[in-house]
């Protein structure tokens, strides 16, 4: 039976204190971002904002067409959980929209009091950092919006803009930097990856009594397997399952130390890192000369 979720009373600033740790300089440098918040962050952000508005029709359109009907208001799990009104998808997008109106529209420049246009100041930036990192980009709100306005797109744009000014969170940047170091989000070095695979081979020998290979970096295999995050670390039974399946089907396969995990944290940061993180998969496939990529996640 479906039990309706109680809709919380709004509590202004209820989750204001729940904030991410700022990024470390060494990670930021690795992923091609300014190592700390730049001196002229406001100009840098506005410049990037203009660029983003010219690159994504979704963002430009969503800035203009929201009618504030409130259909999405009680659909975000972060609002249902905290009751903080700025966690309503429409209010979250409004943090972006207020700045957009102030600097990019005639209505906001001339009649700021009607359209609630606001300056991009320190207070607004703090709100951006807090609330755009309290969105999980699940896109649930877009299912209920009559125009399909997707707050995830706006969240991604806002994070991209903040990243351009050197503002990001430690969690995301550290993971992306780790991917560039080791090929996976967990920071497993190539040697350790090879060892893990040989341990799994031994396990499999014990269980099944058959020699089943866990190939690593085999040039010329047919399939490159890029498993989801949990499989090579927590749910090793699934990993063993892959090996059994390939063995039974008689398909030659390999994993790559360059890219042994499919999870992409670039999605939570900016387009350049999203692309670079995914590009590893293609790069590994080219170098190993495989014919197919099996890609989890």
């Amino acid at each position, binding site marked *: 039976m479906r039990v309706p979720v109680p*809709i919380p009373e*709004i509590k202004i600033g209820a989750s204001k204190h729940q904030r991410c740790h700022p990024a470390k300089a060494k990670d930021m*440098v*690795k992923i*091609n971002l300014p190592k700390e918040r730049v001196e002229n962050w406001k100009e840098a952000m506005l410049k990037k904002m203009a660029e983003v*508005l010219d*690159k*994504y*029709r*979704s963002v*430009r*359109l969503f800035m*203009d*067409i*929201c*009618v*504030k*009907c*409130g*259909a*999405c*208001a009680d*659909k975000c799990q972060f609002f249902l959980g905290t009751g903080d*009104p700025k966690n*309503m998808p*429409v*209010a979250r997008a*409004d943090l972006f929209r207020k700045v957009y109106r102030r600097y990019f*529209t*005639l*209505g906001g420049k001339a009649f700021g009091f*009607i*359209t*609630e246009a606001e300056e991009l100041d320190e207070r607004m930036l703090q709100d951006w950092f807090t609330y755009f990192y309290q969105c999980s980009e699940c*896109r649930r709100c*877009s*299912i*209920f*919006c*009559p*125009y*399909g*306005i*997707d707050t995830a*797109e706006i969240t991604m744009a806002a994070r991209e803009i903040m990243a351009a000014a050197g503002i990001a969170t430690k969690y995301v940047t550290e993971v992306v930097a780790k991917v*560039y*170091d080791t*090929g996976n989000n967990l920071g497993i070095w*190539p040697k350790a990856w090879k060892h893990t695979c040989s341990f799994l081979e031994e396990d499999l020998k014990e269980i099944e009594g058959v020699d089943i290979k866990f190939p690593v*970096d085999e*040039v010329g295999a047919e399939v490159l397997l890029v498993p989801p995050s949990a499989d090579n670390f927590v749910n090793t039974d699934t990993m063993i399952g892959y090996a059994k399946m390939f063995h039974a089907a008689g398909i030659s396969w390999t994993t790559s*130390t*360059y890219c042994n995990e499919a999870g992409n944290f670039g999605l939570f940061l900016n387009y*350049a890192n999203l692309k*670079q993180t995914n*590009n590893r998969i293609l*790069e*590994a496939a080219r*170098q*190993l000369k495989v014919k197919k990529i099996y890609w989890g996640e």
Partner: protein
Amino acid sequence: MGALTFIFLPYLCTAVFLLGIGMKVFFWIRTPVPLRIVTTPAPRTRMGVTWRLIGDLLWFPNLFKADKLLWASGVLSHICLWFVLLRQLRYFLYPVPTWVEGIQTLGLYAGYIIPLPVAFLLARRLVINQVLYISILGDYFALFLLLTITVSGILLQLFFRTYVIDVKALILGLIYFQPKILNVHWLFTLHFISVMILLVYFPFSKLLHAGGFLLSPMHNQRASFRERLVNPWDFPVAYNDQNIFSPEKYRQALMEQKGEKE
């Protein structure tokens, strides 16, 4: 004063309306769509997309999933608005087409209904806490404008009947650039001026949602992932010295493993 209201104002407002909408739509269309981001469940064919957009236009299926009362008032107000607009085509066309004559009665009753859902939408903004929080002055302004227009229209229809021939002469005069100045009831002037304000307000506000949803990439894309979507502003991946695990290093590692040298 008459000349200002009935000649200068309509030309100015119509020009602002058309130019404003044209500019906005131009900016939207000029902006590329780099990625496929359609919301599931998504149609796979162009025909499916057409049906989806027609559905969005007529009965707001997403809103139905979200909030039934809001959906009901939204659909009611929009459908009635369409009928009223179509009914009023009779002031703009000469001779009046048969189908416009046919919907006169329907349009009339639709006009009587409109204030109800609009008043409900207004009340909703004031009563529900979350919606009150997100509402800005512009939202109330749009609703008040709609209420003023519809209520003055109803009063003109029921109690302060305007001489329709005069109204038609006024509008046809404007269309054929032979404007006339009318001597009418002040209520008609109010009705007329509110519509002019609406025309000016339309392109610079959320009322533009009417033109926007057809372009929404969440709804007008297909879920055909076999076709490649070209991103016009794509750029190559940038590695730097700190990217320890660059492709070159990987290539070298593979070579060493096979006992080869570059």
